Structure formats: structure tokens, C-alpha cells
């Protein structure tokens, strides 16, 4: 079988990672780990509130004797637990959105880029129509239509993302389609399916991966923006976005509510962004091939 050189080359490249890339990778892994272990470390139950413990600064001791290292929120919940739980939601929303949007984008982008003609016409026009709405507006409209729920947020965001992925994939498919090595496969008599799978697809994946990485971060931010407008995940589920959004009224008085999830969000998104850059640098020479 054909072996993807990228896959082979990457571990080698990772060994010579610059410092900031290692930090970024470490941060992301740490967060993912914390997200997985969160329920064990500091269980969070949205339905458990303690009004007497509200708005306590970091390090305060709660009425039940536990220390809230990151303080408490406006209903007296431990921010640390909320941030850990929120990460699971935010990461899930972002990842599922990107996977769903990415898959749809990949499929349609491949079709449009490889076959061109009317397939490209239809897919590109649909993309154009959709891009005519700035994506946040579309998400607002959809989230408004569907009502707040995690699934709906994912749908709303994925719908706004697929075009981006489709365009990236279409672009690389288009670029590869007329390359001579594809021509030489055609001359050899290869079928469309074979060309798509073994020639076009591998070339489309690296840029798609880069785009996906970037979008994971941006999707997390978009989720937060939807929460700000009251269109995010429902109150029964903690998410970074909604915690920051709820903490915004307390930025001047109880800054710790928005600060912890805000810092976490920024850290993760920046780290992912750095990794995306790295990936782009790593795959660039290859996509040039």
C-alpha cells in the first residue's frame, strides 16, 4: 500500500520541536487529561448550589468545609469544578463540530474539486450562499431556531464550518487534480475512485488537518459567543463559554468567575493555534510537492 510520508516524517519533526511548540503540546495534553480526570478530582453538579457561599474569592473555605481554590461563582459553586466540567463540554462541542463539519466538508470538497463541472457548481454555489451570511449570524439564527442544547449548538456551528473545510479541500483537490502524477495515473488507466482515494485524498488531508486545528480553537470561542447571546449550551451544562458569559457581570467585582475559564480558553486556543502553525509549517513543503 501507499505510505503517507507525512505520517512518517512527523515524529521526526516533533523531535526538533521549538520550545513554544512543546509548551503548547504540553498545555493541550494537560487540559485534555484534566478534562478526563476532572469528575474524579472535583465533581461538578450544576444542580447543586449553595447561595450562602456565593461570590467567594479564590482560596475561601466553603460552608461545607471544602476550600474553593479558584473561588465560587454567583450561585456558590466551586469554579475549579465548573471549569473542569466546562472543559469537557467546550472540547466536546469543538471536536464534534470540527469532525462533523470536517467530514461533510471533506466529502463535498473532494467532489467539487475533483469532478469540477456541475458538481463543483452546485457545491460551490451552496457554499457561496451560506458564506453570504456571516457565520456568527447564521449560528445565531440556527441556535435561535433550534433552541439551546449541546446538540443544537454543534449543529449550528458545524453548519457554519463545513464551507471552510470544503473550500480548503476543494482548493487542494483542484491543485492536485491536474498535477502530472495524477495525469500519469490516468494514463495508466486508474479509475476515479482509485485516483480520489490514493492520489487526491492524501494531498487534501494535511491542509484539512491544519484548518481543523485552527477551527477547534475558533469553535470554542464561537461557542462562548453564542453563550454570551444566550444561545449556547443550556444552563444545566457547564461550558467555558457560558461560565465566562455569566461571569461578565462580575468582571469588576468577582473577576475570578470569568478569569479562570477565560484564561483556560485562551491558553487552549493559543496552544492549539501554535500547534496548527507548526502543522502548517510541517506540511507546507509536502503540499508543495
Amino acid at each position, binding site marked *: 500500500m501507499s505510505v503517507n510520508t507525512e505520517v512518517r516524517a512527523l515524529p521526526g519533526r516533533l523531535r526538533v520541536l521549538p520550545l*513554544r511548540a512543546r509548551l503548547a503540546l504540553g498545555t493541550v495534553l494537560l487540559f485534555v487529561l484534566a478534562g478526563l480526570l476532572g469528575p474524579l478530582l472535583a465533581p461538578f453538579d450544576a444542580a447543586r448550589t449553595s447561595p450562602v457561599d456565593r461570590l467567594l474569592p479564590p482560596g475561601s473555605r466553603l460552608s461545607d468545609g471544602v476550600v474553593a481554590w479558584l473561588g465560587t461563582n454567583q450561585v456558590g459553586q466551586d469554579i475549579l469544578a465548573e471549569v473542569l466540567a466546562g472543559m469537557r463540554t467546550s472540547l466536546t462541542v469543538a471536536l464534534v463540530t470540527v469532525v462533523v463539519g470536517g467530514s461533510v466538508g471533506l466529502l463535498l470538497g473532494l467532489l467539487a474539486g475533483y469532478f469540477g463541472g456541475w458538481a463543483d457548481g452546485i457545491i460551490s*454555489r*451552496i457554499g*457561496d*450562499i*451560506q*458564506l*453570504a*451570511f*456571516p*457565520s*456568527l*449570524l447564521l449560528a*445565531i*439564527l*440556527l441556535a*435561535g*431556531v433550534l*433552541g439551546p442544547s449541546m446538540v443544537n449548538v454543534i449543529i449550528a456551528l458545524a453548519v457554519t464550518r463545513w464551507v471552510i473545510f470544503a473550500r480548503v479541500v476543494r482548493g487542494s483537490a483542484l491543485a492536485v487534480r491536474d498535477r502530472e502524477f495524477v495525469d500519469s495515473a490516468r494514463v495508466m488507466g486508474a479509475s476515479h475512485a482509485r485516483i480520489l482515494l490514493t492520489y487526491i485524498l492524501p494531498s487534501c488531508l494535511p491542509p484539512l488537518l491544519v484548518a481543523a486545528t485552527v477551527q477547534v*480553537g*475558533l469553535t470554542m*470561542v464561537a461557542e*462562548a*459567543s453564542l453563550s*454570551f*447571546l444566550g444561545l449556547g449550551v443550556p444552563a444545566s451544562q457547564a461550558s467555558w*463559554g457560558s461560565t*465566562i*458569559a455569566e461571569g*461578565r457581570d462580575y*468582571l*469588576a467585582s468577582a473577576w475570578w468567575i*470569568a478569569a479562570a475559564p*477565560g484564561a483556560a*480558553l*485562551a*491558553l*487552549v*486556543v*493559543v496552544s492549539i*493555534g*501554535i500547534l496548527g*502553525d507548526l502543522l502548517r509549517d510541517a506540511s507546507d513543503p509536502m503540499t508543495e510537492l
Partner: protein
Amino acid sequence: MTAFLGRRLAQALLQIWGAITIVFIALRVLPGDPAELILGSQATPEALETLRAQLGLRDPLIVQYFDHLRAVVTLDFGQSWRQGVSALDATMERLGPTLTLSAWAMVITILLGFATGSFAARRANTWADHLVSVSSLVGQALPPFWIGIMLSLIFARWLQILPSTADGSMVSLLLPALTLALPFVGWLGRLVRTGILEEMNQDYVRTAHAKGLSHRVVFYVHVLRNTLVPVVTMLGLLMGYFIANGVIVEVIFAWPGIGSLLVDSITFRDYAVVEAVLTVITVCYILLNLLVDVLYVYLDPRIQLENA
């Protein structure tokens, strides 16, 4: 050129039609109906029914759809029940402020973006460059509303040097425009940086040096101009983001833009306004991109390549 413009215009019309249809479908499947919101919680079922019929909500969907299309073509979206005026008027009076704000944000983005981008490019791969690239990522990593509120707290509440609400004066638009622009300054900066570095490797730069031109002339006269080309195509997109992200900024800085009107109108099922707003935004956006396409020709003469 005419053939191209014709095709591009047809494409734009198609886009507008598609957008209108999406909006129509989305609104009809929304739960909740305007009659209830208009009449409030104490309305009688009969009154609701009469009002629904009056609003045309009882017609078959397809009839509603064609009515709607006709309405759009004649620029008659109907009355806003919340404001008691024509939906188009309600929308148009918000368009101005949105465009003003977006334009300022654009100016800030371009100025800062080019400044940081060329700064980073000239110091490519130094710590200054890395700092710029990381801080540009931070700009995109923070939710815009958070940036807005923080700017407002710092400059309006604590330092008290800028107003917290926008009243249209230039000073008052500074914070909202900055809030809109910040996430994209880094983005544009990175784009500019890559563009410059890419251009710097072009053969013509070598020629320019061989001609004995100074670094300054090579950079500002030869290189920068060519990096504009890919950047300009992004500006149309950017304007779209500004119009959309405006929603958040408008709420924070109490600026009467089109975005908050949209969110309100969705909440209150003011269909006429939602339709008018989305149509207007779409048209603006499409026209803008058309403009960018045309601008492109003037910036990049290569595009006329095949013109025999």
C-alpha cells in the same frame, strides 16, 4: 469584463435568492409565534387566530413563500410589529451605524495589521516575531465580548479616559471599533507577514536589489504592493465578520447596529425585521465582495493575462 461581470452578478443574485430562502425556511420552523408575543400572555385563542390570519401565518407555506419573494423584490418586508414601522425602515436606520463601526474597525485592522505584519516579517524568526505571532493568537483566542467588557472596564471605568457607550463621535467609537478589530489584527498581521515573506523570495525582489535600490524602496515600492493582492480578497470577508461580530460589540457599547436588531427580532419573532435585516446584510456582503473582485483587477494586473 462584461461577460465576467454578468456572470458574477448572476451569481450574486443566486446567492441572494438562496439566502432569502434559507431565512424563510428557518423562520417558519422556529417554535413560537409572533401573535402570542404581540398579544401577550393574556390573549384569547380567537384573538390569536385572527391576528395570525392577519399576519398571513395561516396560508400554506408555499403561498407564504411566494408572497415573501414578491415582497422582497418590491422591497416590502411588511411592518415591524415591535416598532410599528416598516421593517425595511427599521433596518436601514440601523445599517448606517453598523457600517460606520465596521469601517472604523476595518481602518484599525488594516493599520495595525500591516504594522504588526511588516514588523514581524522584517524580524522573521526572532523573538519579536514569535511574540507577535503568539499575541495575535491570543487576540483570536479571547471571546470578543470579554475583550469588549475588559476594554470598557479599563478605559471607561477605571481610567475614565474613554466613554463606555458609543454616541457616534470618533472617541466613543474607538473602544467598540478596537473590540471588533482586535481578533483580526493578529490574523491580518499573520497574513501580511506570510505574504511579505513569500514576496521577499520572489525573483523580482532580487532584480530590484540588483538594480541598486535601497531596502526601503524595495520593501515599500515593490514588495508591499504585491502583498496587498491576497490581502484585499480577505477584506470583503473581514467586513462580513465585522457586520456579524458587531452583534456583540453593539450590545456592550450600546451602539444601535443591525446585529442587535437581528438578535432582538429573532427573540421576539419580529419576522419582517429578521427577513429585512438578513436580506440587507446579505446584499451588502455580496456587493462588497463584488467590489473586492473588481478592485482585485486594479491591484493585480496579471489577472488580465488572457486578454488578447
